[in-house]
């Protein structure tokens, strides 16, 4: 087993190196046979990487503690699903996961007969460079198949915090996003090398980019959800360097998803799009470097891994390479770019949206790096935490929401101002009515009210757009409303998928704004039978019980809940003491209704009759998860639908209908 594992890794290096060289020779000599051989190399590489991956799953699943990785992250008692999920619990395994995904992606690209073109050898070379890098790091620094000196009877076990469904999903989804971004990057560079300045690379990689973005969204959402359920501080996002690292590429790809449409249709913004995709790719490497090098003070313990330096070197190499390629072709890119025709057009509104998203990227980047920047300049490390990010990001996000409200109404080229005003009026009016109702209800907090109003405005605009489209179709086809709505979406999935994503964002915004502005927290020590009030809830501490389960001791507090004077069941926060892990952990109890979460943590106790609780009322948090699901659905609709050309045709026809 040890042999197979290590041979597979060495083979990985050999094959990727060979395929890379075969590609280069093939391209130099214009020799199909070499290129064909490189393709074979890529396929066998995918095979070898799959063997490594399956092997790691196998030794984890069968608890072969002679392997260091297995012994470090699992033990006998661990449920099988977490034994397998321990695949990505450590450095070595996550590198293997990355390599595996990358080699599968490369194989898909090389295999896809329909999309064969001259770019492929370049694309595969760039991806192979990536794969080679990961293999080298694995062999030199983090080998998942390393043996232990003496075979332990049992492993160390998986950190209890990781024994959550989030662990099964979150890392994989995030990685699929990260890895996916290498593909559009490779196409972009390939197009540049070949001096092909059209939007071909964008069209070919639209689905890759969108899929990567989908997984980044999903990964971040699941991460937040997991943190909220597991960590007991009542929040879902803390602006920690590690979180920011995965948020940054999300922002730049979001910008790219919009600006690439302009290049597709108008052949504008070429340099910009290239820079965005290069930046997104570099940010995935940068994020990995950041979290593995330990240069920033985070609550994480990073261990003494020097993986960071590998990533820094590779990142610098790829960045210089990309800059070199762009710089040498700059005149070419420049020569057939078109200028913007009108200020008031979709083009310029997308440009503005890009600008805001990049500003957000920069703000997050700046805050994350500020400790290092300030140390370099003044000698003192200044950490900026959540207050900075909240303060800076709130207005940026507000502008972004406002843009999202306005932009769908602005048409391509030169928009008609009258129609824009007409279409804005009702949604805006409804949003203002909403704001007035909020104020009348006695809701405080001017910023939150502004934020919510803009969100509602944005939501209304999208509903109205969908409604108008459906009505227009109904008029033309005499279909029923539902049928017309369905057909309309079906015919133009990119546009309406996008709208659904925006609506999802609106719903998330409601959750984020409300939970930031209106959450309540109470810390309370109470005796048995004692009641206390939090928000609309009245909690009564009944008793503390202790049970033994699977070798873990579980202390549970039983509490009765009254909501607005009515009995509303019970709630049971727990504290778990693990047999195989030194620290206990708090198991949060959450009671969700449509508008708020009751979030209770059992903190400590003096005796069976007296315990301390932390109770939070988090308004609208469940909306965040609902909005996330909607975003995923919308992205999926945009993803499966619409060839570029078809979308273009229908898009123009629809404008005709509306006009």
């Amino acid at each position: 087993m040890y042999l197979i594992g290590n041979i597979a890794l060495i083979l990985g290096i050999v094959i990727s190196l060979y395929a890379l060289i075969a590609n280069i020779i093939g391209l130099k000599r214009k020799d199909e046979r070499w290129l064909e051989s490189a393709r074979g190399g890529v396929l066998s590489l995918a095979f070898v990487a799959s063997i490594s991956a399956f092997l790691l799953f196998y030794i984890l699943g069968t608890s072969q503690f002679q392997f260091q990785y297995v012994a470090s992250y699992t033990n006998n008692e661990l449920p099988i699903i977490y034994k397998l999920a321990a695949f990505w619990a450590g450095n070595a395994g996550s590198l293997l996961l990355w390599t595996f995904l990358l080699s599968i992606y490369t194989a898909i690209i090389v295999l896809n007969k329909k999309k064969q073109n001259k770019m492929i050898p370049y694309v595969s070379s760039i991806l192979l460079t990536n794969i080679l890098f990961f293999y080298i790091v694995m062999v030199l620094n983090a080998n998942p198949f390393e043996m232990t000196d003496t075979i332990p009877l049992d492993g160390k076990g998986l950190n209890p915090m990781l024994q959550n469904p989030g662990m099964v999903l979150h890392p994989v989804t995030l990685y699929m996003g990260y890895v996916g971004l290498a593909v559009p990057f490779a196409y972009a560079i390939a197009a540049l090398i070949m001096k092909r300045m059209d939007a071909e690379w964008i069209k070919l990689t639209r689905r890759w980019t969108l899929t990567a973005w989908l997984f980044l969204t999903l990964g971040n959402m699941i991460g937040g959800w997991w943190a909220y359920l597991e960590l007991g501080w009542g929040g879902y996002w803390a602006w920690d360097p590690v979180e920011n690292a995965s948020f940054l590429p999300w922002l730049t790809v979001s910008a790219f998803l919009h600006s690439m449409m302009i290049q597709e249709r108008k052949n504008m913004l070429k340099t910009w799009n290239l820079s965005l995709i290069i930046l997104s790719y570099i940010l995935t490497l940068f994020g990995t470097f950041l979290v593995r090098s330990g240069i920033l003070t985070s609550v994480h313990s990073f261990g003494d891994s020097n993986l960071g330096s590998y990533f820094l070197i590779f990142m610098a190499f790829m960045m210089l390479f990309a800059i070199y390629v762009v710089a040498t072709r700059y005149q070419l890119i420049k020569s057939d770019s078109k200028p913007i025709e009108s200020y008031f057009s979709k083009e310029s509104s997308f440009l503005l949206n890009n600008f805001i998203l990049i500003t957000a990227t920069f703000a997050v980047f700046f805050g994350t790096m500020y400790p290092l920047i300030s140390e370099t300049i003044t000698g003192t490390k200044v950490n900026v935490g959540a207050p900075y990010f909240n303060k800076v990001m709130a207005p940026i996000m507000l502008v972004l929401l406002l843009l999202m409200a306005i932009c769908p109404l602005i048409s391509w080229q030169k928009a008609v101002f009258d129609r824009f005003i007409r279409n804005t009026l009702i949604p805006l009016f409804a949003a203002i009515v909403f704001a007035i109702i909020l104020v009348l209800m006695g809701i405080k907090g001017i910023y939150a009210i502004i934020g919510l109003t803009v969100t509602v405005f944005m939501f209304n605009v999208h509903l109205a757009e969908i409604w108008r489209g459906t009505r227009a179709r109904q008029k033309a086809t005499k279909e029923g409303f539902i049928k017309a709505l369905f057909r309309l979406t079906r015919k133009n999935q990119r546009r309406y998928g996008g709208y659904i994503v925006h609506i999802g964002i609106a719903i998330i915004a409601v959750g984020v704004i409300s939970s930031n502005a209106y959450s309540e927290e109470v810390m309370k020590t109470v005796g048995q039978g004692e009641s206390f009030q939090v928000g609309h809830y009245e909690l009564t501490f009944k008793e503390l019980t202790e049970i033994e389960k699977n070798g873990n001791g579980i202390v549970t507090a039983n509490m009765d809940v009254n909501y607005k004077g009515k009995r509303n069941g019970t709630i049971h926060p727990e504290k778990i003491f693990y047999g195989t892990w030194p620290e206990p952990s708090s198991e949060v109890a959450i009671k969700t209704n449509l508008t708020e979460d009751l979030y209770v943590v059992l903190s400590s106790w003096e005796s069976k009759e007296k315990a301390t609780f932390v109770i939070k009322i988090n308004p609208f948090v469940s909306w965040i998860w609902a909005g996330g699901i909607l975003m995923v659905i919308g992205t999926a609709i945009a993803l499966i639908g619409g060839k570029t050309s078809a979308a273009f045709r229908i898009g123009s026809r629809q404008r005709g209908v509306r006009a």
Partner: protein
Amino acid sequence: MTKNKKIVFGLSLVAAAIMIMFFSTMPSAGSKEIAIEELLNNKDSFKDEYVMTQGLLIEDSVQWNADKIELRFEIVEDGRDRILPVIYNGVKPDNFSEDVIVIVEGFLNEKGEFEAERVQTKCPSKYEGEDPENYDPEMHQNRNKTNED
């Protein structure tokens, strides 16, 4: 001037405005990272300044007053002997045991005690080799937040 240039010009103005916003927010929202030794040696200069410092927990010093929800403990810099007493109006983190690294943020008061607004812990060695990238929420596992907003 072409429209492109005008747009670029306009956007750069906005960018400049936003940059100013960043920098003006920074000092008020940041916390200086100061070593315990330095903090105690320059008590006066750090008065009324929001600072962040870290040290190892001395478990025997932990006093928990459940009724007042007040936590008192002492931390010491690794390899040094200056001790920093900390007061925190909040609950005890889950792994508050000997030699855990405690990160505190707050103010040094006149009596030389540190009034913490945030207390976080991390384990020096137990998670070694684990991959933070994979489970970013894990970093908060010991985080005890009371002043998130």
